């Protein structure tokens, strides 16, 4: 090697240092995928046979029939909207104290652990499982759905509130503390202004989620439009079911659009 050309080579250091482990992981993943797809049983005869039946099934959705079951569709929608709005409002109101307690930077350690526990439990079970549970407890109907969605909202909103508070600017909070403000004043003047815009946006987003979930909890007996949808399937009234699906899609799109708009507006 001549002394004149002494180039120093550079390569980005690999994420996993050990080459055996690095390549082992890649090869292992490839083998697993090959087996996974290899053992997937597809019976092509049944697929072709089912395809024509599926076509007939889908065809029976058209044209959607809004009129013959309109009364129960309307009742289902109103019930779902009631469930959505009440569970969002109650869930958010209850999640504020839980969220404050679960923010490490303003809570006392035992309270923190307790609130984190509440959040973890309410986030462990998806709304549909909570709904099955509450239907068993309180019987069929929208009250069970309302409870399931409220608890889902507490888990969702409380956790995001706690995380937002944990990532706030500590200096602004320190400044308000330094003027001699009380604890509630401190929350109102330094924490709330920092988290409010995002929390309004998330509240509207949760309204959107709760409406979609209200259709799901109905299927397990939690009332609302989901119950109506299930009934129409059970009666083989696919044209009415199509109408219900279209209405759900419409409402979700309206909520989606307006929540995006409102979130941009509050920022």
């Amino acid at each position, binding site marked *: 090697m001549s002394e004149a050309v002494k180039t120093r080579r550079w390569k980005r250091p690999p994420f996993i240092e050990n080459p055996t482990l690095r390549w082992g992981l890649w090869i292992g993943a490839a083998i697993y995928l090959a087996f996974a797809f290899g053992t997937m049983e597809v019976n092509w005869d049944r697929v072709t046979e089912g395809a024509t039946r599926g076509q007939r099934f889908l065809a029976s959705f058209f044209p959607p029939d809004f009129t013959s079951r309109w009364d129960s569709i309307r009742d289902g929608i109103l019930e779902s909207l009631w469930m959505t709005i009440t569970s969002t409002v109650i869930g958010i109101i209850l999640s504020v104290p839980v969220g404050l307690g679960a923010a490490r930077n303003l809570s006392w350690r035992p309270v923190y652990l307790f609130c984190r526990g509440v959040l973890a439990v309410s986030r462990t079970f998806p709304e549909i499982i909570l709904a099955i549970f509450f239907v068993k407890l309180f019987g069929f109907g929208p009250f069970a759905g309302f409870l399931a969605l409220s608890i889902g909202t507490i888990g969702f909103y409380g956790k995001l509130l706690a995380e937002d508070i944990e990532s706030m600017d500590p*200096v602004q909070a320190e*400044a308000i503390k330094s*003027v*001699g*403000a009380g604890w509630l*004043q401190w929350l*109102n*003047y330094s924490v709330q*202004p*920092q988290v409010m815009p995002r929390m309004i946006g998330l509240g509207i987003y949760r309204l959107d989620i709760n409406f979609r979930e209200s259709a799901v909890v109905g299927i397990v007996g939690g009332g609302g439009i989901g119950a109506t949808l299930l009934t129409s399937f059970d009666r083989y009234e696919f044209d009415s079911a199509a109408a219900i699906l279209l209405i759900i899609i419409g409402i979700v799109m309206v909520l989606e659009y307006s929540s995006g708009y409102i979130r941009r507006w509050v920022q």
Partner: protein
Amino acid sequence: MLRIENLEKRYQTGDLALQNVNLDVPKGQVMALIGPSGAGKSTMIRCVNRLVQPTSGKVFLGDLELTHLGSRELRRARTRMGMIFQEYALVERLSVMENVLSGRLGYVGFWRSYFRNFPQSDIDEAFNLLERVGLDHMADKRADELSGGQRQRVGICRALIQNPDLLLVDEPTASLDPKTSRQIMRLICELCDERQLAAIINIHDVLLAQMFARRIVGLQLGSIVYDGPPDGLTPEVLTQIYGEEDWEATIEATKDVDDEEVDVLEAAAALHITKVNPPS
């Protein structure tokens, strides 16, 4: 006004931030606290208003010993100490007026402050102060719409509306350009003079410290290594505080600036700061 006795702060990590600090700041004195980053300047003023809890030692504000106050008494004591921050620390999504009025939070109840229903005398005082720093037309702007110098003026108003006896000022100019820095330092010093406030100003800029303070305290690794007038900062002293460096240039520069500085900057400041008699 402020007396610190044997103050020590050891962080949970074991780092000793302050040791054996003794200091007496009389009424009306503006004192600059200089020292390198990490010397404990910030920790020291935060030990005074207990944003940081000192490990041992005593801090007296007038006759009141601060280090053992319960939360209610501490809250009351904090109203007597105004604090000004490096990054202004305004609540960005609140308006200028709300930020200034937040300095009165220690004096009003929760519901009054929640509905922004402050006493008329507080609102009058807020407008007086904003007028004094030339920002009364900005009262309803959101704090994050202001420039750095404007924000720091709002920060000064927030500290002064507390009607404090003592100002704790943490690197007020570190985020500002040189000209604005001088205006802000001048404003703080003028206001302290008018209201006979004691002030501790943390500042790492030796030049600015020498220009504006009548007393300089040098902190190095948590201990006071210099306490005296600005012209006592010889190269030897600066080396002791900051470490080995060529200090002659710094010292020369201060002498030049002192003379011409005044006219130029007074003129510049007059454009931005309307002089109004302080509210009684």
